[in-house]
């Protein structure tokens, strides 16, 4: 509800942009069963952890519908860079040369918004990815994304707090969260593979949530 109200403020600015098209889709019903929800799980690779200085280099996403990840929806998009990847290349293995032929950020963003229409966005540690995406959205459409978001990291933090477990930061990394649900280790650092890993984590979290409710 709040999301719809906040969008009103920006409605005029986003007219005739991909963002407006995305907003036109009805928001997912918050009261529906999680298991039947539609999600778009995303991950981005950036050239810096500071959104003010870095750039989004690539985006990966995959959709969840009716409780299953559909690999047909998986996409990996490189984004043309203006400032170069710098030292971050050692982490994500994306080099300036890879980005030479990449489409403009606007193209990638439009594709993301098309996929996200009518779905809840999912990130692991949403704050960082959203900071980048909102900056980009402001630049392209003059407005923030204002899309419904779920953060698997926050879900995990809440779950651990409910159980009274202390939570060191390292215990909330994607890898550590996955391990807690018996999900296999994944070593890759690529936006799409990370998105897939996050999607699997979300499925596990949902399964254990509904399982707990079923029992009590």
């Amino acid at each position: 509800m709040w999301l719809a109200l906040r969008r009103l403020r920006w409605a005029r600015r986003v007219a005739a942009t991909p963002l407006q098209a995305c907003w036109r889709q009805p928001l997912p019903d918050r009261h529906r069963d999680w298991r039947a929800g539609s999600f778009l799980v995303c991950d981005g690779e950036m050239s810096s952890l500071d959104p003010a200085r870095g750039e989004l280099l690539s985006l990966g996403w995959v959709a969840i519908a009716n409780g299953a990840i559909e690999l047909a929806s998986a996409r990996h998009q490189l984004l043309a860079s203006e400032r170069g990847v710098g030292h971050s290349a050692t982490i994500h293995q994306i080099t300036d040369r890879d980005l030479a032929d990449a489409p403009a950020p606007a193209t990638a963003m439009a594709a993301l918004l098309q996929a996200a229409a009518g779905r809840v966005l999912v990130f692991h540690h949403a704050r960082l990815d959203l900071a980048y995406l909102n900056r980009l959205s402001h630049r392209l459409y003059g407005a923030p994304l204002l899309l419904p978001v779920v953060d698997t990291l926050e879900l995990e933090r809440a779950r651990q707090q409910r159980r009274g477990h202390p939570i060191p930061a390292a215990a909330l990394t994607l890898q550590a969260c996955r391990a807690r649900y018996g999900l296999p280790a994944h070593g890759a650092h690529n936006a799409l593979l990370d998105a897939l890993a996050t999607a699997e984590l979300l499925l596990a979290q949902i399964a254990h949530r509904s399982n707990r409710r079923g029992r009590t």
Partner: protein
Amino acid sequence: MADFLRQTLPFQELPAAALEEALSALRISYHVQGSILEAASPHPGLRIVRSGAVDLRDRDNTLLDRLGEGESFVVGGPDSSQHPARAIVIEDALLYLLPAATFHRLRQQNRAFDRHFSSQRSRHLRRAARHRPPGNALQQKLRDSMSTALLTVAGSDSVQSVARAMAKRRVSSALVLENDRLAGIVTDRDLRVRCVAEALPSSTPVAAIMTPNPETIDAGSSLFDTLLLMTRRGYHHLPVTEDGRLAGMITTSDLILARQDDPVYLVQHISRQDSAAGIRNLLTGLPQLVLQWQQADMRAQQVSRILTAITDAVTVRLIQLAEAKLGPAPAAWCWTAFGSQARAEQLLGADQDNGMILADDAAPEHAPWFAALAQEVCAGLNLCGYPYCNGEVMATTDSWRQPLARWQDTVRRWTASPSPAAVMRVSIFFDLRAIYGDAGLCTALQATMLQQASNNTIFLAALAANVLDSRPPLGIFRRFVVERDGEHRDAVDLKKRGVLPLTDIARLHSLAHRIEAVNTEERLQALARERHLAMGDSRNLADALHCIQQQRLQQQCRQLLRGDKPDNFLNPRGLPTMAREQLRDAFTIIDQAQAALRLTYRAGLD
């Protein structure tokens, strides 16, 4: 993405285009323990277990199979006779589904893919194939095993000059060439039988005693064919040709050494090396060998025995090399292994625990020789992958390199006033085995230890307190207690919390009852035989040790496969339910044995 899935899913047989089709059809879902998949469940098709475990049952609920990571199944289906009726998730599972329509289409279009899935029965074959031992060594081509550094001589060369050349090159045969063509072969045996025994002058031309026009074999032949030919004709040497030209020579000992995967030959190879670097090169293949043994279902204690035999061989060879360099020992002495090497219970990544016992008549001026030898051997072991001991339990440490009488004094001192530090050392020190030299010295020291320890209830009580210090990792309700933080969060240290307490228990009983055996299993057997331990307790402890060692070995193999350095940490969550239960039982047995030990050795003290 395609690469990633090709590595994790059984799609290796698919051509690129078909793989794309399979990928875009995949659906991934997560199922909690207890979920059931039946023929009537939505989304029929091939399900691949990415993680977790699934039981397959038929209509009568009989268990057909238990599947783990990487295995796949189809529930129900048109020919349900071939497929299980139900799949029950026994451990939270991540399943990749290839929808039935795509699955059938891909099977029709790709024969290899079809064969892969043709029936549930074939899955067992696949499992066997996945663990296929590397090709039989005898099927290798000759050219990889032959020696190419050939000694060639002319027919007119004198027998003596040829014999000299052979001695210098340390080879047992020479090839006689005439106009670049192989004219004959002369071997050690020919020199002996046809020359020396016949009293021919040493100036005789070699052509007179050679075997003319010897049989040859092509370099492309298999070792098996070569061996067959040589056995049939009684040859020990056979020239090898490639494209009709002389290319090398194969001997019976080359053929034996070609079987490198056999530990017996690895040990033999080690004893032939002339430097620590040479030994290290041989040992680089060791982790791979351990993997093969484990995949061939070799039991952990056998693997330990072989690994220890290899460590022994390396140690002996390094000592021989050091002696060759330093000259013969000035007095009698014995190289002694301590800890896991002494017990023959090593796995990968063991560090060195060793010492030297010198005869009491060794004079002070002999000390530098022994110190220099210790330096050489310990440095060599370190180079070969047995890192220096953190606790300095090494022959290079002065207190671990002493005359027998001084060693015996140390034992008396430690047992008389068991300080915590002394008790800690005892756990390494009281497991000892002679590796090289005068084994009598080692036996004498062990006799002193057993005599001092068995009479001394205060010392035994101190040892017992030390044993009781490390509890098995079980909390109330038999839940696993895992490391709370750090690098090994959520994991159990199998060595520290399992193997060591169990070894400590066996050692304590053995010291109390003067059992000479050092290997834990042998100690447990001896204790039962002499009725110091109930037969059932002895067997339970042995089983517990095997179970934990087996998990430790498997964990190390998994780490090797992932390219990680093997350690002793295991996350019990990652285990299939049955293995986890067994591990839990093993720790419970240790816990009970500790309780019994408290009553025996510390009654009234705690």
